[in-house]
């Protein structure tokens, strides 16, 4: 495969498209599938088959974003280039929908595409999502896919690729926000002969589904990003560590690797150069802590998935003690576009310290829940009130939780804050991987803190004492507070445990486990205070339970 071959495929696809009157896209990502998109796709295909005129192409595509209104179908007329989107489509609607092609749009199912949910987004990572068929390599190539990789290996040196990534200012999208270019160049500098690239797709935060959507909607983009990373740092082997709870993403990824290898875009001698790059899939067995990089590598090696102290960092001593580059799905999915349009173009988006865009999974008490991609620096208020469509049922906004169990809750007074790594951190939360849970006035912040603490307690690997025993004690204290049995002394103890667990835990899971408690205490302390008993009404000590009872 060289650039001419890619252009030829793109041309052939464009011609095939021209011969169609309409292209009907049905979202087949996990969310729409679970609300019946499979039957809708089948229904539309039946109609297309029976249609004597033909010329209608029914295509399964990836996530269109507005998951709460699924199953989603979008219709575009090739000639007029108009795009109509339909929401909540059922198999019974397919007849009417098919009949409306070429005529007036079916108003009762129509989903307006000029609403802020779509208009305020800027799509880089999700550029092809909802447009191309994720199981079709030619579709990705027609959309400009793999041209960055082929150009890089045939025309650029690894140092050129590194320079663009550095220039872009891209920071890790997995949560930490470490500069990607710096990480890459550290691994690239190592003289070791064997190096690895790992794509971290062990997305486990409650309410987060960005990586799943990217892998389900545009798997080749991630593979291309990985191959570019391999070329830049001098690695020939790579792993995608993905959780087994994402069967659809795993299946599409497997298919994508097979297709790309067959076409010579992965595997040995890519584009007839000396660059080899092989990607293997490793399935996670359901442990949240395996998203932590050292635990993830232990798991790939077949060991018990638990972290080890850093340094040495993976860039120095990683998988089987070889230098290893670990990046998150979204980070890698940005790479093909950065190489295609240049680091300066990417740097122009977002803010000075947080460049580019960020994908967020909007969930909770919000009108439009789903997947969005917005430029960094956007105000939280814009995400919640405009893109998200505000709080349903006339209720009041209370807080937005970012960063999952490692993050925090931000109240109304911080809604005008720009979404950046550093501003979020200074407000007591983190960017995290992109989960965003909106809460209204009916949510109790003590319950929220207790929920996340329970999550950390059950997901602790059990290696270090503060995380193993500390999260259990903190959860017990939060239980006591939520049930109205606690006194001021219990709250003081809770705060002290937060400090100890945060400061002394071995890995990121333990170090950030107190964050939901600390941020709710910072902004909603009165909710804790209201649940406390006066010291004089302190509960008598419970009798000690021993033995097997």
């Amino acid at each position, binding site marked *: 495969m060289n650039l001419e071959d890619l252009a030829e495929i793109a041309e052939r696809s464009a011609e095939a498209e021209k011969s169609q009157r309409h292209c009907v896209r049905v979202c087949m990502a996990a969310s729409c599938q679970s609300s019946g998109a499979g039957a809708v796709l089948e229904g539309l295909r039946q109609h297309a088959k029976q249609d004597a005129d033909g010329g209608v192409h029914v295509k399964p595509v990836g996530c269109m974003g507005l998951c709460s209104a699924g199953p989603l179908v979008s219709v575009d007329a090739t000639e007029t280039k108009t795009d109509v989107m339909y929401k909540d489509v059922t198999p019974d609607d397919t007849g009417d929908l098919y009949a409306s092609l070429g005529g007036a749009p079916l108003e009762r199912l129509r989903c307006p595409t000029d609403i802020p949910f779509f208009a305020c987004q800027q799509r880089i990572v999700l550029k092809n999502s909802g447009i191309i068929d994720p199981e079709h390599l030619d579709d990705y190539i027609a959309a400009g896919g793999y041209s960055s990789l082929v150009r890089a290996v045939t025309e650029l040196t690894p140092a050129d690729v590194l320079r663009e990534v550095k220039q872009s200012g891209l920071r890790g999208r997995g949560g930490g926000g470490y500069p990607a270019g710096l990480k890459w160049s550290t691994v690239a500098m190592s003289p070791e002969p064997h190096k690895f690239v790992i794509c971290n797709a062990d997305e486990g935060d409650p309410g987060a589904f960005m990586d799943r959507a990217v892998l389900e909607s545009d798997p080749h983009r991630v593979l291309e990003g990985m191959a570019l990373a391999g070329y830049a740092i001098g690695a020939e082997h790579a792993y995608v560590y993905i959780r087994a709870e994402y069967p659809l993403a795993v299946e599409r990824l497997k298919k994508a690797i097979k297709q790309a290898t067959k076409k010579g875009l992965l595997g040995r001698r890519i584009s007839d150069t000396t660059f080899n790059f092989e990607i293997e899939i490793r399935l996670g067995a359901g*442990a949240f*802590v395996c998203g932590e990089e050292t635990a993830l590598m232990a798991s790939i090696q077949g060991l*018990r998935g638990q972290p*080890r*102290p850093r*340094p040495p960092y993976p860039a120095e001593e990683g998988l089987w003690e070889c230098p290893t580059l670990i990046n998150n799905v979204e980070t890698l999915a940005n790479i093909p576009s950065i190489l295609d349009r240049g680091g300066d173009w990417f740097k122009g988006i977002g803010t000075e310290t947080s460049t580019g865009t960020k994908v967020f999974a909007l969930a909770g008490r919000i009108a439009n829940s789903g997947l969005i991609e917005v430029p960094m620096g956007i105000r939280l208020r814009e995400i919640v009130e405009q893109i998200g469509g505000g709080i349903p049922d006339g209720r009041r906004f209370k807080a937005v939780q970012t960063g999952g169990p490692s993050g925090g809750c931000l109240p109304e007074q911080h809604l005008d804050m720009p979404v950046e790594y550093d501003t979020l951190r200074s407000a007591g939360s983190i960017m995290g991987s992109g989960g965003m849970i909106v809460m209204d006035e009916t949510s109790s912040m003590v319950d929220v803190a207790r929920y996340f603490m329970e999550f950390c*307690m*059950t*997901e*602790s*690997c*059990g*290696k*270090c*004492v*503060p995380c*193993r*025993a*500390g*999260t*259990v*004690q903190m959860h*017990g204290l939060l239980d006591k507070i939520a049930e109205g049995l606690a006194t001021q002394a219990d709250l003081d*103890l809770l705060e*002290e*445990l937060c400090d*100890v667990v*945060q*400061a*002394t*835990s*071995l890995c990121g899971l333990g*170090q950030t486990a107190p964050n939901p408690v600390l941020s709710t205490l910072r902004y909603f302390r009165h909710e804790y205070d209201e649940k406390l008993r006066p010291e004089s009404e302190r509960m008598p000590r419970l009798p*000690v*339970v*021993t*033995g*097997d009872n």
Partner: protein
Amino acid sequence: MPGPPVTTSTGVKVRVVTLKINEHDIGARETDSILDVAQANHIRIPSLCFLEGLSTWGACRLCVVEIEGYPRPVSACSTTVSEGMVITTHSDRLKRYRRTILELLFAERNHVCSVCVSNGHCELQDLAAECGMDHVRVPYRNQPYAVDSTHEMYRVDHNRCVLCTRCVRVCDEIEGAHTWDVMGRGIECQVITDLNQPWGDSSSCTSCGKCVQVCPTGALVKKGTAAGEMEKHDEFLPYLAQMRGNR
């Protein structure tokens, strides 16, 4: 400035660095951990999971120290020294952290010294005394655990286990049997023999007793010892480790 290279017994050249621990100027090899350097200079840092001769584990978090310019305390056992480090081992904050970690350990399982065979010879008990942990503020979990007496010579009492994994490491790294391992996660973790079979039925155990000698508490003991009788001897370990090539 880093000093001249030093040649070790294995012939590898190692640089020497200077650093400060608790206001004392100290010279050390750059491959040494903070804990090694402190011990060599008679500065005591409390630790539990660390044992000379075994691989570093970094899990008890009692050996945390503060280094100037670092955002959070680090474990002394797993951090190597570097030129110009300024280390504090006993600030009020660190002492408070150590006490709280010990409280968490004491509340996690059943550590009642008066009825324990290791009373008086227990590292956990010594650490509590050393760190001034005179009472436990967090509620005891009171979770009963099993006692396995199926082995003909030894007994494992999970109620006394602190999950330091010394037994797991000595069995794997020194004896080479890998009878011990850890199962479950979080608070459910437990050390097991083979695939969670009774110790007495283990086909891999060589009954060497190294695990018993390195266990810091009364979790692994010799049968037939009464309260306060179980003295442990782990002096063999550095020698054996050296004979096996300094693992």
